[in-house]
């Protein structure tokens, strides 16, 4: 079967676009949306199960499948329009490379997801994994203006556009963001950019967790205007103290005034990080989850943060935590058991806090699902949408608990 698929794919795409992974599974690297559509159409027709992969830096490429479809070949930055602050970028482009190209043109994409710099834009879109800049610039969905994606049965669809405001038609772009590929393979996106700020300053406070969350609340009550406010658990062997990073961006005078206002009458001591140390802190926050096999996020408003952090510590033991105490999100990375994670999801659900499994080994994803039990009426909608975009499922995605889809 594997050999037949391999041969068939090579016939369709040419030899150079089809290889084998370490386990002998055929791995297609299509160079265009149309080629992705050809593979999906073929797979749908033949009943092959497809695992979609990006750069392989975030989600382990371990979902059982008849073939892997990599977006690595979709590596073009099609357009950067600095005057309009939009760009059109293929899904396989690494975020680090994109950031460099944007900066050359005075622009940036204010998203700093966890993971390696070569993590792909497609992975970011599929998992909806925003980092600390979510505080000031919003979640991933706010930055994606449009998308081209390919359905499980090989149709190329386009959603949204490359203008910053657009209400034409149903918002299929938002449906793709954070859907873990259940509704298609995103091949190209239009993104919204910002002009690089004139000044960017990072301050850091170190201390007991409670003091830092109190400080974060006090900053929020005072109407803090910041790019990021991120609480981080102690690093390995780093003692009991947590850190709170505060990043400000804007005009020089504005940033300086906000820095002075934020740090005055503070119960914790703030240190201003020089640009190198600030970059190191950002990089540490991004890379820390990769030291463990599993990462999840929980939506937690500031008033529930302390309690949820206690619950996490009590239930799962030590883990790598990065939390946005201003806008409400906790990201935990570690090695939890199925049972512990399932119980935790139940505890979070009792508090109306959704837990999303962002990455983890396939057997965990399959048992737990990226999402927990759906809220009233949502399950049938998701099933019908799945049927719409991936009939007789082609894509190996474990959206809900205990299901193997397909």
């Amino acid at each position, binding site marked *: 079967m594997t050999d037949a698929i391999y041969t068939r794919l090579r016939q369709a795409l040419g030899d150079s676009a089809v290889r084998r992974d370490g386990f002998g599974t055929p791995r297609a690297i299509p160079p265009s949306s149309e080629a992705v559509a050809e593979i999906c159409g073929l797979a749908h027709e033949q009943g092959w199960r497809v695992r979609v992969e990006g750069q392989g830096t975030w989600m382990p490429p371990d979902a059982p499948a008849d073939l892997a479809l990599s977006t690595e070949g979709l590596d073009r930055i099609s357009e950067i329009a600095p005057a309009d602050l939009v760009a059109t970028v293929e899904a396989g482009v690494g975020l680090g490379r994109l950031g460099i190209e944007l900066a050359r043109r005075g622009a940036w994409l204010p998203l700093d997801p966890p993971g390696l710099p070569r993590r792909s834009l497609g992975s970011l879109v599929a998992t909806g994994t925003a980092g600390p800049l979510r505080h000031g610039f919003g979640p991933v969905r706010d930055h994606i203006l449009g998308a081209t994606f390919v359905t499980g049965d090989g149709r190329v669809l386009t959603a949204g556009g490359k203008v910053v405001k657009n209400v034409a038609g149903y918002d299929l772009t938002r449906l793709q963001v954070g859907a873990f590929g259940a*509704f298609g393979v995103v091949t190209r996106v239009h993104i919204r950019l910002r002009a690089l700020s004139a000044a960017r300053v990072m301050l850091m406070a170190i201390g007991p967790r409670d003091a830092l969350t109190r400080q974060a609340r006090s900053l929020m009550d005072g109407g803090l205007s910041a790019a990021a406010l991120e609480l981080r658990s102690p690093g390995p062997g780093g003692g009991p103290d947590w850190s709170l990073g505060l990043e400000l961006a*804007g005009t020089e005078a504005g940033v300086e005034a906000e820095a002075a206002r934020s740090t005055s009458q503070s119960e914790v001591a703030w240190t201003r990080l020089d640009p190198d140390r600030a970059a190191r802190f950002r990089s540490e926050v991004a890379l820390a989850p990769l030291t463990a096999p599993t990462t999840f996020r929980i939506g937690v*408003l500031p008033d529930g943060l302390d309690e949820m952090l206690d619950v996490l510590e009590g239930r799962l033991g030590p883990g790598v935590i990065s939390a946005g105490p201003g806008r409400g999100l906790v990201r935990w990375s570690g090695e939890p058991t199925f049972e512990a994670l399932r119980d935790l999801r139940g505890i979070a659900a009792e508090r109306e806090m959704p837990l999303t499994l962002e990455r983890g080994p396939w057997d965990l994803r399959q048992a737990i699902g990226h999402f927990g039990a759906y809220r009233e009426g949502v399950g049938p909608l998701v099933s019908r949408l799945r049927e719409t975009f991936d009939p007789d499922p082609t894509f190996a995605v474990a959206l809900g608990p205990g299901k193997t889809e397909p």
Partner: protein
Amino acid sequence: MSDRLRDQLAAVVGSRWVRLRPAELLTYETDGLPTHSARPRLVVLPGSRDEVISVVRLLHREKVTWVARGAGTGLSGGALAQDSVLIVLTRLHRILSLDPARRRATVEPGVINVRLSDAAQPFDLHYPPDPSSQTACTIGGNVAENAGGPHCLKYGVTTNHVVALEVVLPDGSLATLGSPHGEPWGPDLVGLFVGSEGMFGIALAITVRLEPIPPGIRTLLADFATIRSASEAVSAIIAAGIVPAALEMMDQACIRAVEASIYAAGYPVDAGAILLVELDGQVAEVAAESAAVESLLGRAGARTIRSASDPAERARLWQGRKKAFGAAGRIAPDLLVQDAVVPRSALPDVLDRIGEIGRAHAITISNVFHAGDGNLHPNISFDSRDAELSERVRKASGEIMEVCVRAGGSITGEHGVGSDKRDYMPLIFDAETLNAMCRVRRAFDPDQLANPGKVVPIRFCREWSGASRRRSIAGPAAASDSS
């Protein structure tokens, strides 16, 4: 049938809340769009969440099509109900909760937009999306249309502020989408529902994120000899990394309309364009940004710059902009407020083309728009009783859409597709995508009872065939939408 249906609906909501007589239906024949009208079969005004659910269930049982409507201020003919039952939601106008600590509010769909900000104001919070009709339009309507407004440049549109929805689907079942905590319990169905133009169901409870009222606000008004130099100022401000709360432009035709009206705001009538820039945030940041903006405005050729930070002065600068539609409305009996988006850098060329289109069709077009995000509102003043003139207006609208799409833009930025823009949808989406939209609608509404005939032309809604899919693989353009 209508008598029986009226009796059944009256049993749910009480007979005084069912309207059937032609004179009663007249009010509901149009929304804010003067070029389209349709008479509903009857109108029902439920007074509670449970009544809405019962009405929807009844209509589902009877397989009767229906349209949900808020205040009827929409500008795309989205709430027109040709031979359908119109469900008017204005009686559901309670703010169900307002939690200042969590910066969240939950409202019924009939709550008027500005009322929410008024209610949040004592807590130094506000609800940023502010459509020009905000003193009349409802949050439910805003959700249906994904409404914007001048202050959406910095703060985002409706979809950026809705975190959770309780909805009744067209089959009468309930669904809870999203979460007040901001993270969804699954795929982003809130994002999909917002802007679905009333075709996926009715939002019964809407939970939104509130934002702190910024301590510093400054409004600048600059006038320019030409639209082009004003547009260059817009680009320069954005390129400097400054995101104003609002960045609004009016062209000369619009300035003159305002200045000739009771809303006169002292705008110079010889200016080619005026630009309103509002900056907000922390006081020091606002001061630094306004100094930078003033300098950029000057460099781009501003003839004069007025600046205000106290509320009364700011209101004066804004007055002409806020009343621009009213002022344009007095030029002729009817005003068609068009809506399209183009990349910011295309603004000057597109505005030139719109001027040419107006002259070619001998119609009056004035422009007032959200320049910061390239969201144009060409206003066409006309008399809808003149059939020949109406036809020219229709043609001009179509040409304006084509120009905007060719410039890389979209056919609507905040008014929605509704009835008005439906036939332009193939300009920006291929047949495969339009068909997928029909299928997404059927995921929410298999019987297609809610707001029929809007958004996607019906010819794209046929079932897939294997043959059509295989053609699509050869390239999306190959997919046929005919037959």
